[in-house]
């Protein structure tokens, strides 16, 4: 477990440092994810401890968003001032994105003639 956590943190660290040095337009954690992915492909499998550490982190993913969400307190004034624009972008924008994504995937799946999932 300790090795797995270290591996994940070091991937992120290398990602963040590379972004700082090279000025790549990608956020550090994303580069870290690519590094870890490359490592998994090189190794040809997910070690059990790494799988468990990742599953533990991802199992409570929504908890991790709570502190950022409470930040609405700080931005309350700005958001109230532009509430119509923000509400429209949040609600309509999200519904449009969900619909376009789902319909695109459905159409292309049908065109290429393959089922989306084993039971679908």
């Amino acid at each position, binding site marked *: 477990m300790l090795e797995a956590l270290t591996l994940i943190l070091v991937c992120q660290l290398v990602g963040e440092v590379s972004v700082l040095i090279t000025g790549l*337009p990608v956020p550090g954690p994303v580069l870290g994810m690519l590094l870890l992915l490359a490592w998994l492909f090189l190794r040809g499998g*997910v070690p059990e401890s790494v799988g468990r550490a990742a599953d533990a*982190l991802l199992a409570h993913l929504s908890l991790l968003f709570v502190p950022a969400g409470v930040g*609405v307190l700080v931005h309350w004034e700005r958001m109230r001032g532009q509430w119509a624009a923000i509400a429209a972008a949040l609600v309509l924008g999200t519904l449009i*994105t*969900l619909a*376009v*994504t789902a319909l695109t995937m459905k159409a292309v799946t049908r065109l290429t003639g393959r089922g989306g999932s084993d039971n679908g």
Partner: protein
Amino acid sequence: MADDPFTTLWVYLAASPLLWLSLTLVCYLIALRIYRLGGESPWFNPVAIAVALLIGLLLLTDTPYQTYFDGAQFVHFLLGPATVSLAIPLYRERHRLQRLALPIVAALLAAVLTAASSAIGLGALLGASTETLISLAPKSVTAPVAMGISEKLGGLPSLTAVLVVSTGIVGAVLGTGLFRLLGIRDDAIKGFALGATSHGIGTARAFQVSPVMGAFAGLAMALSALVTALLLPPLLARFMASGG
């Protein structure tokens, strides 16, 4: 007043990160309990409930957000390692990814471009400021990635974080109903759309519906974080230079 034992205790606790870190976890557990009592209906979104409970506590105790965040930052920090961890579901789903490469690439590009352009378009139409527009643009990707993009382009990373969480909640709450309305029944497609639009909060919701839906949501979340990070900054920089 300062001699009152409760006040002394409060002053001690308020100065340490322990209090708000614990309360963040307690409020989240209460929110999960409420979500289960509500039959896991998407309307009882645990993130929304936990945030509401914590805001109530902060207002009640007159605690500034900075004090709260000093404690809660330990939870917030884990978003980075969690983003790195997305490599694992991606690797595990590599065969399915290969098999469905074409629909996935098409849906991914559609999601990334629609998410940013609908947010900027609707925001601009209704008079949002440039700073708000930039902060809105990456709202469909997971928080650390969205905050990084927002910061690079001159938005407000902390505002982006709030908008990211809100987008996650809106997608998780309204997704099920929308898919029913559109006649979309395939769990792979529903999951992919939820993950691409509503990142981790959508993915958490998808996992509660079915494992296939969850796997595809995690996949979409990882891919859209990657593609948005690569595409959005240059596209948005060009857009800002030309018109905004």
